[in-house]
């Protein structure tokens, strides 16, 4: 039985447009370059024992990605972080490492809340109206939205996932911050929240021009939020 480690890493501006699959592969290659004693699965097609917390869309950066990795030998956590940091491409930094005891639940299974910051470019003249749109969303009892995906159309109530959005004025536009619940029944993407605001709450902004950054992933219960590294 190998040793498990949990790492907090980032997906910076440089690689904002890299897909989740490509991001994972980049980390895996960095692990291989680092010569850390990564554990592989058995079988003909061995793969590295590496698990990520939650997928990020193309175009979304992150200050808080988490991954669990299994090594075949015990390594000092600081040395794990150091070895990996040297081999990570620009845009991926290590923010923390800790060992994980046996029997911990998979990251994917426990994380249930993601926080985001969205920079929405807007002319100064449009700021009042934009703030009003956000306020209208916050006051609305429900916010139905039709999710479209290759698998089909599905109507959701965004309010089931996002309780409220905070808006702050910044040079060049508005900065939105929000927390999105990740439930067994699904979640909503920040880009969909934006599209919903544009379509149903009169936010007049170009969602393509907005910059979304994940600021945190948490395990939340009634009493508070815990980051995966503190579990």
């Amino acid at each position, binding site marked *: 039985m190998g040793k498990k480690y949990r790492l907090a890493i980032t997906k910076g501006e*440089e*690689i*904002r*447009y*890299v*897909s989740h*699959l*490509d*991001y994972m*592969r*980049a980390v*895996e*290659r*960095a*692990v*291989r*370059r680092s*010569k850390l004693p*990564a554990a*592989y699965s058995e079988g*003909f*097609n*061995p793969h*590295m024992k590496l698990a990520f917390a939650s997928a990020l869309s*193309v*175009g979304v950066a992150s200050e808080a990605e988490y991954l669990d990795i299994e090594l075949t030998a015990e390594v000092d956590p600081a040395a794990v972080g150091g070895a990996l940091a040297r*081999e990570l*491409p*620009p*845009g991926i930094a290590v923010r923390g490492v800790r060992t994980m005891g046996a029997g911990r639940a998979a990251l994917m299974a426990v994380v249930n809340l993601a926080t985001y910051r969205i920079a929405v470019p807007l002319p100064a003249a449009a700021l009042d109206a934009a703030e009003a749109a956000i306020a209208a969303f916050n006051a609305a009892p429900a916010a139905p939205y039709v999710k479209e995906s290759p698998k089909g159309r599905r109507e959701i109530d965004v309010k089931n996932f996002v309780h409220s959005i905070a808006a702050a004025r910044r040079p060049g536009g508005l900065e939105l911050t929000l927390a999105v619940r990740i439930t067994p029944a699904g979640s909503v993407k920040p880009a969909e929240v934006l599209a919903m605001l544009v379509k149903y709450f009169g936010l007049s902004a*170009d*969602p*393509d*021009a*907005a*910059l979304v950054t994940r600021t945190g992933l948490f395990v939340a219960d009634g009493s508070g939020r815990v980051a995966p590294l503190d579990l």
Partner: protein
Amino acid sequence: MTKLPPAVLSRVAKPARYTGQEWGSVTKDHDKVDATFALAFPDVYEVGMSHLGLKILYHVVNRRPDAAAERVYAPWPDMEAELRREGIPLHTLESFRPVAAFDIVGFTLQYELSYTNILNMLDLAGIPLKSADRGEEAPLVIAGGPCAFNAEPLADFIDFFVLGESEEALDDVAAAVAAWKKAGKPGGRRGLLARAAGIGGVYVPAFYEARYNADGTLAGVTATDPAAPPAITKRIVADLEQAPYPTRPVVPFLEVVHDRIMLELFRGCTRGCRFCQAGVLYRPVRERRPETLLRLAQELVDNTGYNEISLTSLSSADYSCLKDVVGRLIDQFQGQGVSVSLPSLRIDSFSIELAQEVQKVRKSGLTFAPEAGTQRLRDVINKGVTEQDLEEAVGAAFRAGWSGVKLYFMIGLPTETDDDIRGIAALAHRVRDIYREVTGKRGARVAVSVSSFVPKPHTPFQWYGQNSMDELERKQQLLRTLFRDRSVTFSWHDARVSFLEAVFARGDRRLGEVLLAAWRRGAKFDGWSEYFKFDVWQEAFRETGVDPLFYAARERGAAEILPWDHLSAGVDKSFLRREYEQALAAAPTPDCRRGDCRACGVCQGLGVDIIDWGTP
């Protein structure tokens, strides 16, 4: 410095094609170097990033302290539309500098149907398309790669070509640019071109004039400038052991076509298939030592983190110490989670044994290329493979657990008759039957892929008139009627694409206007079926009054001056002619690698030798 707006990147497919920042990419301070190169590949990122030659050149330039190389690929049409709308010039991935701000823009020429992409990229870069229209400030636009061996269709657009293996030549070019700039750019642009013309392997088309006979054939391409040699001979690396190898290649985020370590075992192939251009251009065979390969492999694994090593060469199975090297690579790397793969297979059971060793996992498909359906025609093309070889090889493959094989053939070869076409179907059915004999079961999967033969310059078939599109389509149709069995799938190539390839492969300078006309009418990414617009090309030929059949379909006379006669791969034209005659007599010519010299002229002419570590 251009930074792409988020809205643009959000709107295009696969935006990571355009954002760089890959592991291993090199960004230098342009103020601290004397020569800057934008290395351009006229196809999309995933294709360009898979090209070993470009990785080598990137390394060759960037290892010089006085030079910087950056990369640029053809933007996909969605991105092209965004660039044009936003007025963003074509720029490199490393520094996002406009391509027009570089000293040299160097294109890799791999495929004739990427020529319109070159014009499109120059246009997007704001660089005048024609060399003659470029001012003092414009970069020098240069090109290399196999298609440079018939440079003439691009002569109007390219300032100079580099023939042959460019790792040393590009070094010379970088040194020449740096020296010229340091000296205060004496003679201006023309002065630099004259310096370049003095570098071995460099062809400056503006220093030559093409004259034609009344019947449209070429009367000659002759030097008009004292700096220009009468003929240009390819550059060659005599000993690959001394050649620089990119052991820190750029590792893309995006999954590219060849997304693995490429370990080049050797260069050259002297099996002498008469249709094959690479076999002539890269003569003679020069192998790397096994120890060198193992060392390079370890460096590549350490530096890239890739989990697969692909052994690449024109015919990797011909490497003299292959079994030894494969065994040692597997021993060395299996504990590191790295596998070994062998892309090109020879048709024999030795190859199957090896394939079994390296591809324990993937029983998906093995590829064989008999190329022709009958022994007679295989003798014509000098494909030294018998039906028995194929039977033994696929038998061994099926016994080893493979159930699918791919068979590659060509139609339209010289002397071909319908019996040869029927032979393709017969061979495919024979392979299906062998599966039943070996396994006692049905259910073989035989995929037959048939391309149409495109005669290439610098080959024994360079004189041959290509089959007409009608004839190729008739043969395809004949094959369709012969493949009735569901265990055999048949695919073929668009005859119109092969026709256009044939026009440009053996074209002359008069095709420059056709290219321009087709590009103006929207031709680009012609190698991609979704963008191939044959009607646009037909209009371009009509508009310019150029007859494409003159280039594709015409059998050339033995004495005719060919548009590439002044560009030499070191192989004598008389050897190629002899080989053509041998072909018509269905007489084979054995490999010179371990047999007698066939007097092609390359070793004596270029002062190089075959390097084969298996020779006792």
